[in-house]
């Protein structure tokens, strides 16, 4: 069954690139949505939970890890898989975001193959 996906990034360009890359990865993706910041993402998730959320770390107002903690507090999103997508590569930061409740991590720059590798186990 096709999975719904939400992309959260303050850059509209990066949201389009991630969407393009996910599609190029030929994953079984159904409904897609976007949010330009954490507050918008929370509002959309409260209205309709998604199967997978791809989320930037460095965003103004609400950071990615802050958003992850809030999403983990939403009962409707208990099964939502969260993958962080960021340029941050420091192990301490990766550990922190995984500890905040994220399920995985993809570093920029990325390829469709990298998305396939990280998302396929979550789609099955």
């Amino acid at each position, binding site marked *: 069954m096709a999975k719904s996906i939400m992309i959260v990034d303050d*850059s*509209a*360009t990066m949201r389009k690139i991630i969407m393009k890359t996910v599609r190029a990865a030929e994953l079984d993706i159904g409904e897609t949505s976007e949010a330009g910041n954490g507050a918008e993402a929370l509002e959309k998730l409260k209205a309709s939970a998604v199967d997978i959320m791809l989320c930037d770390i460095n965003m103004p107002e609400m950071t990615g890890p802050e958003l992850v903690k809030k999403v983990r507090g939403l009962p409707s999103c208990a099964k939502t898989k969260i993958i962080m997508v*960021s*340029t941050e*590569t*420091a192990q301490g930061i990766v550990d922190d975001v995984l500890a905040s409740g994220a399920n995985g991590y993809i570093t*920029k*720059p990325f390829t469709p193959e990298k998305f396939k590798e990280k998302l396929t186990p979550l789609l099955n």
Partner: protein
Amino acid sequence: MMVDEVCLSEALLAGAIEVFETMIFMDIRESTAQGQEASRESSSQDGAEQHPKGNTFLGSITFTGDMEGCLGICCSVPCARAIAQNMLGMAQTDELGEAEITDAIGEVANMVMGSFKSRVQKRAGNLNVSIPTVVKGRSLDASVGDASRTVINVNIADEYAAELSLLYRQEKKREN
């Protein structure tokens, strides 16, 4: 640990190459044109630009930590448009607004910074990175007080000139 300029230059160029190959699908290489330092506005013999001319976009991103400074990429408006079109998988004839180009150049600066950081963090220590900023104008240049400066002139897609820059100051260990 102090990091030498050669190491930083190599990491900057390698980071840019990785980003352009993986995400932008454009060739980028260090410009080898003769006399480019003395003549910033001159053109190369093969018709490609040597330096960004006229209106340019400057995408920059600052960092703090064991080393502090600013990484920048500066390119002409046509170059910035081509980069944005390639990133988004658009044709050269597709319309693209200035906001989209600005956003794309900010993302390029962000990704080059990320790639640079991953290459130097073992030697340069932890770097905390800001959100990128992009400005458009003439004769743009980034400046960070008394920071050291590394500039790499690059050629993109054998057509456009661009400039990668790194301003940095290494944190001196405090004596107790």
